[in-house]
């Protein structure tokens, strides 16, 4: 039986509320099907399944808030896949415990350590009892077995009480706090090194102009699509940067490029273009057009939020010249694309006015050294300047 768990949709996610089951027991599930909507700090997220099988049993009620990793449902695998034990829609991001993501300078958490007997904790976990809502009757107010048993029988009685499930977009504050937690952790834990490189963008812009000439407005390519594709190819060449840090460098097989989307209300979300290396620039552009509005409406899918293996931040036209990123843990690198501006730039011994862009790389010095980073920027430059080969 496959145990389908509450995925972690980012290093800053601790728990999620199961807003709605999209599938019911008996339904046949295919890879990529959306099984449920989960309400998080980042909005209502569609959760996908990654294995085939028949939905056997739902273990969490709609409206219930459960920690990341809680088993949500059991899926009976199709014949021949019985060996699969766990459904893990989460890859990199949940490798690090979330608890430490709260830096001390944030408003002090009122959460105190819950006193609970080891046996009671075990029973609570087996029965999905939220111990934070219980009052203990043991010594020093500790929760003991009897308290859990009482809660379990009560839970049985309260079955199916209607709950208002209207998705509430996350508040500006909650997004701010999520960003604050992830970035504070990164700054605290990751020794960053920074590299930068100035790239002549003449070819790239020329190619884009040509490519967009005969396209309708909706189909036009943005430089971002080229950046993402070029980064994906460069990572394919320098795989040590397409990785996570988990007490050691762990390379990832897929190349999923997260890109920073600013929200009008403030804050950012970082949706991901999955398997960017095997998509064409056009396909990437389509994906971007699909994702950005959904990201701004807080309607992203679980995989799009959780599976990035590398992140880029792009300032866009007319903005700052350079952007130095802070790595999104547990990834090991972030590339920054500054605004393109015309500068005096020498090419082949000839000084001229060229559109140039400064690209930066922030790397995790635990995972890689400057040489690797430098190789990456070299490869990235090569791909950016030869977009016809992308």
């Amino acid at each position, binding site marked *: 039986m496959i145990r389908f768990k509450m995925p972690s949709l980012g290093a800053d996610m601790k728990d999620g509320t199961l807003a709605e089951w999209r599938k019911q027991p008996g339904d046949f599930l295919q890879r990529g099907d959306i099984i449920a909507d989960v309400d998080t700090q980042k909005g209502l997220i569609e959760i996908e399944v990654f294995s085939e099988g028949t939905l056997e049993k739902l273990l969490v009620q709609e409206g219930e808030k459960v920690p990341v990793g809680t088993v949500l449902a059991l899926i009976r695998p199709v014949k021949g896949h019985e060996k699969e034990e766990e459904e893990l829609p989460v890859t990199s991001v949940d490798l690090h415990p979330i608890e430490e993501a709260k830096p001390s300078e944030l408003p002090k958490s009122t959460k105190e350590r819950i006193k609970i*007997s*080891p*046996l*009671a904790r*075990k029973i609570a976990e087996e029965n999905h009892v939220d111990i934070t809502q219980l009052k203990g*009757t*043991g*010594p020093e107010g500790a929760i*003991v*077995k009897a308290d859990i048993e009482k809660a379990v029988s009560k839970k049985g009685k309260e079955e199916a009480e209607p709950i208002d499930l209207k998705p509430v977009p996350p508040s500006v504050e909650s997004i701010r706090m999520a960003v604050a937690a992830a970035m504070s952790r990164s700054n605290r834990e990751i020794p960053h090194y920074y590299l930068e490189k100035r790239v002549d963008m003449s070819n790239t812009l020329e190619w884009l102009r040509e490519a967009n000439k005969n396209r309708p407005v909706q189909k036009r390519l943005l430089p971002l699509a080229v950046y993402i594709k070029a980064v994906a190819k460069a990572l394919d060449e320098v795989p040590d940067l397409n990785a996570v840090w988990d007490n050691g460098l762990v390379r990832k097989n897929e190349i999923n490029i997260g890109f920073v989307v600013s929200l009008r209300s403030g804050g950012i979300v970082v949706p991901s273009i999955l398997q960017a290396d095997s998509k064409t620039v056009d396909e990437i552009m389509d994906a971007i057009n699909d994702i950005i509005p959904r990201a701004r409406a807080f309607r992203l899918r679980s995989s799009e939020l959780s599976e990035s293996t590398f992140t880029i931040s792009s300032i866009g036209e007319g903005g700052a010249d350079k952007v130095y990123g802070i790595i999104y843990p547990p990834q090991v690198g972030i590339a920054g694309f500054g605004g393109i501006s015309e500068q005096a730039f020498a090419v082949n011994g000839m000084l001229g006015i060229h559109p140039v862009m400064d690209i930066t790389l922030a790397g995790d010095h635990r995972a890689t050294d400057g040489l690797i980073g430098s190789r990456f920027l070299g490869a990235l430059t090569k791909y950016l300047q030869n977009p016809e080969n992308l």
Partner: protein
Amino acid sequence: MSKMIKITYREALKQALREALQTDEKVFLMGEDVGRYGGAFAVSKGFLEEFGPDRIMDVPLSESGFTGAGIGAALGGMKPIVEVMTVNFSLLAMDQIINNASTLLHMSGGQVNVSVVIRMGCGIGSQLAAQHSHSWEPFYAHVPGLIVLSVGVHEDARGMVLTALKSPDPVILFEYTSMLNMEGEIPENSGEVDISKAKVRRSGNDISLITYGTGVYKCLEAAALLAEDGIDAEVLDLRVLRPMDEESILESISKTHRALVVEDAWRSVSISSEVSARIMEKGFFELDLPVERLCGVEVPMPYPKHLETAALPQPMDIADKVKKMLRS
């Protein structure tokens, strides 16, 4: 099921010794006043006449000397039972017990076993004051190479020495003088008992009272009091203090999820500390309450009767403690 007979703890010990002397010619008893006087506690009364001075040996007041002689006899192939009149005097024999009896198998590279049984009368409760009221079970249970047994019930009094004599290695047998006149019921055909396992003396579901020696009957009494209040306590008699039967402890905890460890010995660095530590190490996730202990108060034993009583866990104390733990 064979017929039950009523018997005192003293009589049970005596019958066991007599059976041992009768069935194996290599067995002999040595100790202060075991012969002509009949034993300081009359356990070997009549033995001198029955078995003769070669097998019932009075020895001089020299614990180190005669315990060493017993160890030597064991090395020579005999089956000596050394009686140290009381545990209090065994301190004088500790060098022999710890440096010779417990180590010789190791020091000889496995060539010689020290098959000696050392009995010690011990326990508290007759106003013998600070120097004669010791509980040294924890001392001996600390030493690798020894087998340490505690005779907490009549059935074990009737059988433990017989099994102990079968052991190839040195056995320390703690007998409790305060229980000598206590009557108990045992099967008529009682004899050898298992000396590798702890034993559940009363089965229960709400809490495990883990104890040994004089604690066993006290815990059984407490369990009876608790039963009136609807609390179903299990009483686990450790019996074997070394090597400790961890399995039985964990089995009991897995059923009751709560434990109170009871002993007369001082609390610090005791048998109860060891039991508690092992539960924490291997049974942590079975626990619903912290393990608690009731032990002897850590003072030199007072002489006045009421203070002596107050210095030890009594059945009422045990019952009260359990009720407090279970908040009932």
